[in-house]
């Protein structure tokens, strides 16, 4: 009886949320703040509906991803995550969802409550501050959306890099064991014994950026994807040199270019007050990451990599005793082939689940950095910095801090639910 009411209540609340969203789209601003926001986010709703429709129709052909749509928890998580991904992409790349400039200050809008009409609005301006104004009279709604793009960009990339480092070092540590394992495990434990906040306070400061240390760390940490791909392809195709050589040259050329563009800034790999190490010239440089962003990125990868290393090492220790590994060894396969093409694919289930969880954790870490005002500049719209700026007036004007806090909560919750759904579905086979 209780179970049934619970189930109905759950469905009813989901239906209610959908009604709110739908009604908002059609009624628009006359339905209040919710309606206006709902209409403003129309592209996101459309993208979500299309994604879900396509995925549900073809779910039997999509492997683990398709199976996700059998689990309610997984679907809710996926919806939350994709909501922020689409919001980030539409708002950050196409600039469509934002109502005002996220940096400009509008006079008379300081600390105004959500839904306040714009003072002295032109005909071209959006007539409201949907979620109010912050203590510098900027639009909280637009900053929220711009901030989601910062998170959506950095968190998954940093997690991928951490995984590359962890996998490339963890597999040999688990597979070979011995001195290598002892040494690498000691290093990993060394980093893990640091309180995360202490690492951040030591690494992510303008003074450390001046010494060029983050650039050196970037040079070391970012080379791991390159090494990983090279070893992956080489161990697979080294028996067929006619395939391997061109493939390796093409792939390594591309990855090498990306690597060099990533680590060089203004034509220099490392730039300090006393010396420069020249890097890729500016006309070949695909993109520049500012020194502030680079140090944040490096710090987050540095903190995450040892944990991934430990997980991969544990999985490798477990899987290397299986029969198919023994079979491959008898066949005469090389150690790297066994690690990357026998052990790694069989460890993918736990790794995918951990990947989702770790993106969430990275989001939390980015928020922590912002909360302590480290790394990103103080006007950056990312959620942690916004929470930090809003918390000073928290008991008088809570909206400026609550909005990004709830956003961060929902994204991390979505990633956790997604991981939970994936775990459930991958255990089912």
């Amino acid at each position, binding site marked *: 009886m209780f179970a049934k009411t619970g189930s109905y209540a759950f469905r009813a609340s989901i239906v209610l949320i959908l009604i709110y969203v739908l009604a908002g789209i059609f009624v628009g601003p006359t339905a209040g703040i919710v309606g206006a926001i709902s209409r403003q986010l129309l592209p996101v709703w459309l993208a979500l509906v299309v994604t879900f429709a396509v995925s549900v129709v073809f779910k039997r052909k999509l492997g683990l991803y398709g199976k996700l749509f059998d689990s309610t928890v997984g679907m809710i998580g996926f919806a939350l995550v994709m909501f922020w991904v689409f919001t980030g992409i539409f708002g950050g790349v196409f600039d469509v969802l934002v109502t005002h400039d996220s940096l400009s200050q509008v006079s008379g809008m300081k600390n105004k409550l959500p839904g306040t009409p714009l003072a002295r609005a032109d005909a071209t301006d959006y007539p409201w501050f949907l979620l109010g104004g912050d203590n510098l009279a900027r639009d909280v709604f637009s900053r929220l959306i711009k901030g989601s793009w910062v998170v959506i960009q950095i968190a998954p990339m940093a997690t991928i890099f951490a995984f590359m480092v962890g996998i490339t070092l963890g597999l040999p540590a688990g597979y070979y064991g011995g001195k290598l394992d002892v040494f690498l495990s000691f290093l990993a434990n060394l980093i893990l014994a640091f309180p995360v906040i202490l690492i951040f*306070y030591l690494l992510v400061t303008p003074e450390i950026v001046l010494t060029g240390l983050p650039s050196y760390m970037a040079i070391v940490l970012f080379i791991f994807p390159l090494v990983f791909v090279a070893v992956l392809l080489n161990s697979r195709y080294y028996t067929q040199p006619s395939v391997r050589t061109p493939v390796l040259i093409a792939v390594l050329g591309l990855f090498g270019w990306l690597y060099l563009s990533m680590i060089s800034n203004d034509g220099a790999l490392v730039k300090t007050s006393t010396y420069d190490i020249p890097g890729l010239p500016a006309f070949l440089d695909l993109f520049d990451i500012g020194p502030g962003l680079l140090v944040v990125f490096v710090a987050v990868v540095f903190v995450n990599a040892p944990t991934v290393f430990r997980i991969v090492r544990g999985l490798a220790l477990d899987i290397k005793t299986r029969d198919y590994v023994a079979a491959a060894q008898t066949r005469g396969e090389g150690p790297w082939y066994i690690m990357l093409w026998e052990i790694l694919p069989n460890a993918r289930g736990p790794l995918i689940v951990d990947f989702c969880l770790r993106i969430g954790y990275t989001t939390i870490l980015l928020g922590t950095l912002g*909360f*302590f005002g480290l790394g990103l500049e103080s006007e950056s719209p990312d959620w942690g910095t916004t929470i930090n700026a809003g918390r000073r007036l928290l008991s008088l004007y809570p909206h400026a801090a609550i909005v990004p806090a709830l956003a961060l909560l929902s994204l991390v919750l979505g990633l956790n639910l997604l991981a939970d759904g994936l775990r459930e579905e991958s255990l089912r086979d």
Partner: protein
Amino acid sequence: MGVFILRRLGVILLTAFCLTFIVFWLTNLYPNLEKLAKTQGNFRMSDEAVASYLGNRGYLEPTPLKFGQWLGVVPGWVTETQDGKVFGRCFQDGTPVAERPKFCGILQGDWGYSTVFKEDVGPTVIKRLGLTGKLMFFVLLLMVPSALIVGVLAGMREGTRLDRSLSTFSIATTATPEYVSGVIFIAVLASSKFGLSPLLAEWGWIDSKTLFLGSATSAMKDATFWNFFLPVLTISLYGMGYIARMTRASMTEVMTAQYIRTARLKGVKFSNIVMKHALRNALIAPFTVIMLQIPWLLNGVVIVETLFNYKGFGWLLVQAASNNDIELLLAVSVVSVVVVLATQLISDIGYVLLNPRIRIT
């Protein structure tokens, strides 16, 4: 067992040594020293003035030498200025020659001098640790029992609605970092203009203006439920979900064991099965998780102490790090590293003691 503990202690000492050296090296990089000189002297110092300030105070010696001085295995620096003043790491100007100690480092029990607080590092750290200890005590008091209860209730009947809702609750808490839950709690429970407090005050249910106090500064002297509950709750909530999930996993595993089935078939009451047969075995895994969670709480402590303005150990870390107070920061990192490693050791030993099937050779 004795050999195992000794070996672990050796590793701990080695790790602590490496970590303190890394912290020492990072804080002694020149831009950091320059910032220190400018905050201690004045911000418009010329480069030469900075160099002479640092040189006079022994900051420009090679890093390994300075590290040795800090440890107390290398004689401390001594400077003689042009106007005849003699002072050093271990003594001030005017100390008679006979009373000048040569070594003063942590081996001699001297943790140095804090440039921010203008007092000795040792007593400062101990005072702040005491305050954080009080916070941690209440956090553990709230977190551990509630996490275990949630985990056991969820795990005892796997797949039921109770399990699902409790599991979702634990996922939600692990997805809420302290700076998010703290902000929400303050806005909802501790604001005199928004949230619950104005409503409750209007109905006359609470005497004060707010339900809880949004700042824990007054809790440093005397902690009450009113001014101390929110920071404690904020830290506990984030750590709780993980412990609850581990307890649930271990409980579900135990509940499928043969001896539980036997007990059920014998007709033992379900409550007796849970309390007498399952619980003991199910609590072995959470014990290690709780111990390993303590270093994680340290992060939460730093965030919450900043947010609620409670001047404990985490607040000290922030002050030391943002002002590059080298010796204070070193002491803080030694303490936190020792906490991390000691809890790891305790969790290993406890695991062996609790689980007789495991033997260490």
